[in-house]
């Protein structure tokens, strides 16, 4: 006789909903109650029908082939155990299965596992080593790039310095060729008068800068003379006037005749327009 409580437990058991002590008690009752076992069987068949309640879905065609292939590779127990019709059954020849075989298999598996683990560790170690090498190579590359940038910058700076030095040397070389002379006053009434004459022999051109030289009356001019030893008389460098207020003048001049070397410069006071050779008093003379 199955009461409502047992029937409820049977229904729950059919759906695998019993747990713990409740399951243990039910299993004990199930062991000794064949009617209950039959009822559980009924309930299980009814529950299995619920599979038809699931929304229908067709399995992919590949699943059938996959299952059949797996079955081909896995003989069923009927094949393994040699099940055959009773009339043709013969006592099976029992081949003893050595007890050490499982242990050997386990040992092989263990060795394989250790070997695989070793390979894994070696591969991991090699991988770490390669990563470290890659990191170092990247650092080296970055360092080299930095050095290259520094070298390029230094080269550029050196190039500028060389260019500057070359320009300075050229300027100094050019200056060595220039004739630079200070001219002092030869006049008693204007002792502070001063002049500087620079002559560029390459271009045969010069510059004269004068200061504190007295202004002249309209009929007079100052005239610059270049004294070259190859000529018996000074060569005219042209006439000029000074600023009446400051007494200054800045004159770019050329000699009337070709000049090879200049011994002195001189400035004389001449008539308006100048003379071919000095006639008036010498006002300034290079020292």
């Amino acid at each position, binding site marked *: 006789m199955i009461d*409502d409580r047992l*029937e*409820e437990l049977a*229904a*729950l058991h*059919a*759906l*695998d*909903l019993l*747990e713990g002590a409740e399951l243990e008690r039910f299993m004990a009752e199930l062991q000794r109650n064949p009617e209950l076992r039959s009822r559980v069987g*009924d*309930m*299980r*068949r*009814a*529950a*299995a*029908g*619920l*599979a*038809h*309640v*699931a*929304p*229908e*879905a*067709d*399995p*992919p065609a590949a*699943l*059938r082939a*996959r*299952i*059949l292939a*797996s*079955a*081909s590779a*896995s*003989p*069923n*127990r*009927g*094949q393994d*155990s040699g*099940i055959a019709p009773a009339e043709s059954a013969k006592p099976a020849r029992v081949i003893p299965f050595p007890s050490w075989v499982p242990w050997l298999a386990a040992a092989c598996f263990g060795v394989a596992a250790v070997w695989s683990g070793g390979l894994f560790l070696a591969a991991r170690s090699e991988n770490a080593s390669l990563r470290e090498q890659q990191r170092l190579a990247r650092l080296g590359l970055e360092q080299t790039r930095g050095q290259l940038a520094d070298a390029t910058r230094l080269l550029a700076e050196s190039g500028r310095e060389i260019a500057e030095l070359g320009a300075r040397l050229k300027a100094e070389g050019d200056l060595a060729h220039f004739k630079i002379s200070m001219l002092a006053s030869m006049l008693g009434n204007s002792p502070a008068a001063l002049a500087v004459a620079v002559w560029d022999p390459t271009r045969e051109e010069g510059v004269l800068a004068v200061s504190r030289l007295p202004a002249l009356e309209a009929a007079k001019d100052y005239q610059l003379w270049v004294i070259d030893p190859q000529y018996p008389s000074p060569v005219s460098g042209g006439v000029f006037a000074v600023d009446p207020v400051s007494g200054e003048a800045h004159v770019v001049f050329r000699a009337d005749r070709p000049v090879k070397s200049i011994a002195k410069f001189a400035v004389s006071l001449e008539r308006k327009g100048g003379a071919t050779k000095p006639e008036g008093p010498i006002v300034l003379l290079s020292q």
Partner: protein
Amino acid sequence: MAGGDRDALAELYDRLSRPLYSTARHILNDASEAQDVVHDVFLALWQSAASFDAARGAVFSWAVALTRNRSIDRLRTRTNRARLLGGSIPDDLGYDSEAGAPGIHDWAELGERADAVRTAVDALPPEQRRALELAFFSGLTQKEIAERLNEPIGTIKARIRRGLLKLRDMLAHRL
């Protein structure tokens, strides 16, 4: 099949694969995992063929139970059980007797039984049907089903019992 006849396995697959796959997929909500489960179940059938009761009903019940248990085992081994259960069990399990029309089956008897089961389940009171569906497909415990349905656990137990008994009675000639 007990003698290693692969054609018999192929025939059994053609007859059972659809409800088994549908069950696994409904429980797992994952086609790939459902395929794995069905594969394992048929291999188990193949390897245990010699120990089967020849009755078709026994094979079907056994295969369904195995499919359901393996699917629920997978469901429970998912790491975040509560979250995945919540995500894999829709509030409406999707049973619709109108939409559940059978397709072409090699095993007409099984197809007829499927129709009969759907009709029988559809005839159950909604609360009993809901309790049975959750008990069969969700993998939830009695307590969790009670919480899900917001009912006392005793009520849930009673609904499951009454629902299964009605199904058994309605399908007695087919089981």
